[in-house]
């Protein structure tokens, strides 16, 4: 008997993004990853940059002087916004993944409601809080301090 040929049909990285017809939680999942990577990258640089305080006052002043420009301010603001989202969405995920926001198992009755419906009000609240923090942070970054 000839070997059965199968055509590989994995979605690959495109599958992480979903596309157009998926629920909002899938986009939050993608954004959580992207912001997490961004924060990690910043954090690794941050460790080295701020360690200049351990050497001397001059080095600290020159390092801070180097980063004192609009481009880095915008970059820092993006990290701040990423953190606000990642923290508040992470709080939601933590509560869901430890079973506090999924609701207990229940007999499925059509039209089906799932754990997605249980966590959704909390998700909306978290996203509103994140948006508020990002807006107030923007005011602090670009208006209040200048």
């Amino acid at each position, binding site marked *: 008997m000839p070997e059965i040929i199968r055509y590989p049909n994995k979605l690959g990285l495109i599958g992480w993004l979903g596309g157009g017809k998926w629920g909002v939680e899938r986009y939050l999942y993608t954004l959580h*990853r992207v912001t*997490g*990577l961004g*924060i*990690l990258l910043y*954090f*690794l640089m941050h*460790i*080295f940059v*701020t*360690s200049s*305080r*351990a*050497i*001397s*006052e001059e080095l*600290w*002043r020159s390092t*801070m002087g180097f980063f004192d420009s609009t481009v880095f301010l915008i970059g*820092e603001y993006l990290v*701040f916004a990423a*953190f*606000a989202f990642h*923290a508040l969405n*992470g*709080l939601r995920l*933590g509560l869901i*993944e*430890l079973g506090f926001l999924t609701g207990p198992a229940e007999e499925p009755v059509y039209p089906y409601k799932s754990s997605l419906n249980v966590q959704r009000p909390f998700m909306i609240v978290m996203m509103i809080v994140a948006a508020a923090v990002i807006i*107030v*942070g923007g*005011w*602090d*970054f670009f208006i*209040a*301090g200048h």
Partner: protein
Amino acid sequence: MSIKNTKLWTWHVLAGLILIFLLGLHMLGFHMNDVLHMVEGDPLDWSTVSERAQALSQAVFYILFLGFALYHGLYGLRNILLELNISDGTAGFVNKLLVVAGVLLFAFGTWAAIASWNLAKATV
């Protein structure tokens, strides 16, 4: 069979919850200071940096913070890398690389926190 992955994941979540608190304070102090006035003066000016560094509690805060943040961040990176369908050998390499990178970064950050504490004490 061990429950290694259960332990790793549990600490990832706990570290995340702790970070929301620690990093939240850090962010509020540094980036919302013009709104909230939590720190006197510019939090990035040498005078305030040096003043903060004199307190041992600050050094302890930063070391704890560093440890939780490195663990949470590198475990998250490991999740992403291990989901890319890499071979067992590559996965083993990724695990080792992340552990080594984490330990080195933690050692470096700890040195910076303690050295700046010493420096701040010496300048008083």
